[in-house]
C-alpha cells in the first residue's frame, strides 16, 4: 500500500533534484518556496499518532508562512535588487550535480537500511529524504559560486536536518517553544545574511564569492 506521506517525500526529492540542475536564481528561489511548504506539511501528515491538534495546525501555518512565503520573499527581493546576470555560475556543472544528487539518494537509502532501525517504513523513507536534502544543500554550498545560492543551500540543508529530526526525534514536536525558537533563529539568520548580502552587493557590485577571497594567509 502506498502511504500519503510518500507522495510528499517524492515531491521533496523532486524539488531537490530540480534545484540541483536549475540554472536560474529565480527558479531556485521558487523551488525553495515549494520545498519549504511541503517540508512544513510533513509533520502534519506523519503525526497521526497524536492526532491533529489545534496547536499543530497553528504551528503548521506558521511554518508555511515563514518557510514558504517570508524567506523566499526576502530571497526574491535580494535577487531582484542584485541586478546582475541571474546565471548561477556553478563550480561543479549542473549534470554533475544532478548525478551527485542521484548518488546521494542511493547512498542515503544504503545508510538508512544499514542502520537497522525499528521504525515504520514511511519514517525510513523520511530519513532517506532528509539525508538527501541535507546532502544536496551541502553540495549547493560547496559547488555554487553565487552567495545567494549558498544561502539557498543553507536553507535546503536546514530543511533536510528538520526532516531527519522529524524522523528521529518525535519528542521535539511536543515542545513548540523550542521549535519556535529554532524557527526564529532560522529567520534571523536569513535576515542577517540578506543584510550582509545587500552590503556586499553595495560594496563589490556583485555577490560572487570569488570576490570574497581576499582574507587569507
Amino acid at each position, binding site marked *: 500500500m502506498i502511504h500519503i506521506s510518500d507522495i510528499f517525500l517524492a515531491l521533496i526529492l523532486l524539488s531537490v533534484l530540480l534545484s540541483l540542475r536549475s540554472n536560474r536564481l529565480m527558479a531556485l528561489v521558487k523551488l525553495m518556496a515549494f520545498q519549504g511548504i511541503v517540508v512544513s506539511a510533513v509533520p502534519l501528515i506523519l503525526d497521526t499518532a497524536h492526532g491533529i491538534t489545534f496547536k499543530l495546525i497553528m504551528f503548521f501555518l506558521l511554518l508555511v508562512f515563514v518557510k514558504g512565503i517570508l524567506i523566499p520573499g526576502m530571497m526574491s527581493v535580494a535577487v531582484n535588487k542584485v541586478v546582475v546576470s541571474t546565471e548561477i555560475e556553478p*563550480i561543479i556543472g549542473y549534470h554533475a550535480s544532478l548525478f551527485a544528487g542521484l548518488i546521494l539518494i542511493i547512498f542515503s537509502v544504503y545508510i538508512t537500511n544499514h542502520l537497522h532501525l525499528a521504525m515504520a517504513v514511511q519514517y525510513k523513507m523520511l530519513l532517506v529524504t532528509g539525508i538527501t536534502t541535507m546532502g544536496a544543500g*551541502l553540495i549547493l*554550498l*560547496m*559547488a555554487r*559560486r553565487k552567495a545567494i545560492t*549558498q544561502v539557498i543551500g543553507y536553507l535546503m540543508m536546514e530543511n533536510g536536518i528538520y526532516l531527519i529530526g522529524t524522523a528521529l526525534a518525535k519528542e521535539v514536536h511536543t515542545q513548540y517553544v523550542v521549535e519556535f525558537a529554532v524557527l526564529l533563529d532560522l529567520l534571523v539568520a536569513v535576515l542577517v545574511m540578506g543584510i550582509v548580502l545587500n552590503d556586499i552587493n553595495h560594496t563589490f557590485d556583485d555577490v560572487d*564569492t570569488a570576490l*570574497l*577571497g*581576499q*582574507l*587569507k*594567509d
Partner: protein
Amino acid sequence: MNLFFLALLLISAGGTQALATFRLYSLMKVGAVTAIIGGCALGACNAVWRLLQHADPVSYSHSWLQTFSFSLKIDAISAFFLVPVFIISAVAALYSFQYLNDAKRGAGTAINYFFYALLIISMALVACADNLITFALAWELMSVSSFFLVIYDVQKKATRDAGYIYFLFTQAGALFIFAGFGFLYSHTGNFGFEALASIPDSAKLIAFILILIGCGSKAGIMPLHIWLPYAHPAAPSHVSAVMSGVMIKMGIYGIVRFYLLLEPTSALFGQIIITLGTISGILGVVYAIGKHDIKRLLAYHSVENIGIILLGLGIGMLGTATGNKTMAAFGFAGGLLHVLNHSLFKSLLFMGAGAVIQQTGSASIDQLGGLMKKMPVTGRSFLIGSISISGLPPFNGFISEFLIYYGAFHGLHLQGTSFLFSVLAIISLATIGGLAAACFTKVVGVVFLGEPRSDFAARASEAGFFMVLPQLLLAALCLGIGIWPAHFVQVAFEASRAIPLLANYEPTQFMPIMTNISRTVILFFLLFFGITLLRKLFYVGKEVTSSGTWGCGFTQPTARMQYTGTSYGDSIVDFFRPFIRVEKKYSEIDKIFPGKTTYSSHVHDSSEIGMNTFLVRPVLYLLNKLRWIQHGNIQLYIGYIVLAIVVMLIFI
C-alpha cells in the same frame, strides 16, 4: 630561614625603589646598589655560616592555589650554590654602579636594576626550591628576568636578536624540564621531592635526560649552547658577569639536584655526563680560540668550564655507580668547587672585558693591545683571572681540576667501559687545560701586552674606582682559594654528602693532599721570591738600558705587524678542522707590486649550522607547505567541515 627571607626582601626593596625613583638618577643607583649589596651580603653570610656549621636543613612551606605548596628548603647543596649567587651578584652590583652611567637612560637603568634584583631572588629560589612546582616557578622567573637584562641595549639589532634566541632557548628548555617533571609526577603522584628515589629506573633515565636537556640548554652544554655566544656579548658586562658566572650554574644545580634526588644506580648517567663534558670542554675552548670578540670568546669559555664541571660530576656519578668512594667524593667535590671557582674568575674576566670595552670602545681583540700600561689594575686582575681559568697553580682553577684529576685517576682501577671513560676524562682535562692556556695567553698577550694596534686603544685609560675594586676583590679570592684550598674543598665535599654512598665517608684523603698542595704552592712562592732577589743582586751595578724590540733585521716595525689573535690561534683551529668550520676570505697576491690586500676569517659554530640545516629549515619548509589551508575560498572551508564529519563517522 628568616635571615634568608630578610635578604631577599632587602634585594627586592632595592629593585622596587629603583623603579620608584628612576627620575633621580644617582640617588636611584646609590639606593639600588646599596640595598642589593646589603641583601646579598646578608644572604651570603647566612649561607656560608650554614655551610661551616653543617647546620641542619631548614625548610619553609606555604600553601598556594589551594592544592600546591610553595616550599623551600636550604640544605648543604642549596647553601653551597647560594654562596656564589649572592657573592657574585653583590660584586657585580658594585661594578654596575659606575658601569651604568648614562643619566639619560634613567628608566632603562631602573628597569635593569629591578630585573637584576628579580634575577638574584629567582636564582636563590631555584637553589632552595623543594618541590616541582616551586622549582618550575622560580626557573621561569629566572628566565624571564634574565631575558629583560639581556635586552638592556634594546636599540641595537644584535641585542634584539640575541634576546630572541635566548628567549627561545630558555622557553624550549623549560618545556623539556616540565616534561621531565611530568615523568616524575606520574610515578610519585605528588609534587614533592621526597619519593623520587623510589621510581623505576627507566622513568629515572627518561626524566633525567629530559631535565638534562632543559637544564643543559640553560647551562650551555655543547649542542645546546647556541644562545650563549649571542647573549653574553649583547648584555651589559655586569649582567654577563652574573649570567655567565652564576645563572648558567643554575642549570648545573638542576642536574645535580635531580641526580641526588633520583639516586640512580646505573653507570649510564655518569657516562652520558662525561661524554657531554668532553664535547663541551674541548670544542668550547677551540671555538673560543677561534673568536675575535672578547666577550664572545669568554662566552665560549663558559661552555668549556661547564664541560669541566660536567667531567667532575660525571666522574662522581661513575664512582657512585661503581661504589668507588674516592672517585665519587673527589669527582663531586671537584665539580662543585669548580662551580664556585668558575663563578669567581669568569665574572672577574667579564668585568675586565667590560672595562676594556668601555675604555676603548671596541670588543675586537685584534684592534687592542698594550693596555697593561694604560690600565694597570684591570690588566693585572685580568692576568690573574686568565691564569685561574687556565687551571694553573697557584690559583683556584687548578684546585678543582686537581680534584677531578684525582677522582678520575682513581677511576682507572675500574674495568671495562668505566675505565675507558676515566681515561677519556683525563685526556680531555689535559687537552682542555693546554688549550685554555693557549687561548688566554692569546687574550692577555694580544689585548694587554705588546703595542696598541689602534689609536683608540692607545688613548685608553684606567676604569673608575668602583669598576676596579670588584675585580681586585675577586682576584684576591682566586688567589686565596689557590693557596689555602682545604676549607673550600671540605665545604664542597659536604655539599655532596647527600649521596648515600658518601653519607658516612670521612674525607680523610682530602686534608693531607690539600695541605700538601698549599705547601707546594707556598714553596713555589718562596723560590719565586728568592730567585727574584737573586736576580736583583745580579743586576746590581750593571747598566740596564732600553730600546725598541729587535725586528730581526727589519728596521721599520709597526704595531700592525704584531701577531694578531687570529693568526695566533690559526694553527690550533686548523687542527680541529673537522669539528669546526673556518671561513677565510683574502685577496690573492697576483701582481709583482701587489695592491691593497685584505684578509678576514670567521669561525662558524657547527652545532648552530647543524641545528639550522637539520632542524629549523626542514620544519619551516614543511610548515610553509601547509599554508594553503587558509586560502580564502569559502566553498573549500565548508568542504573541510564535511570532510571532518565523514572522517569522524568512519572512525566512529
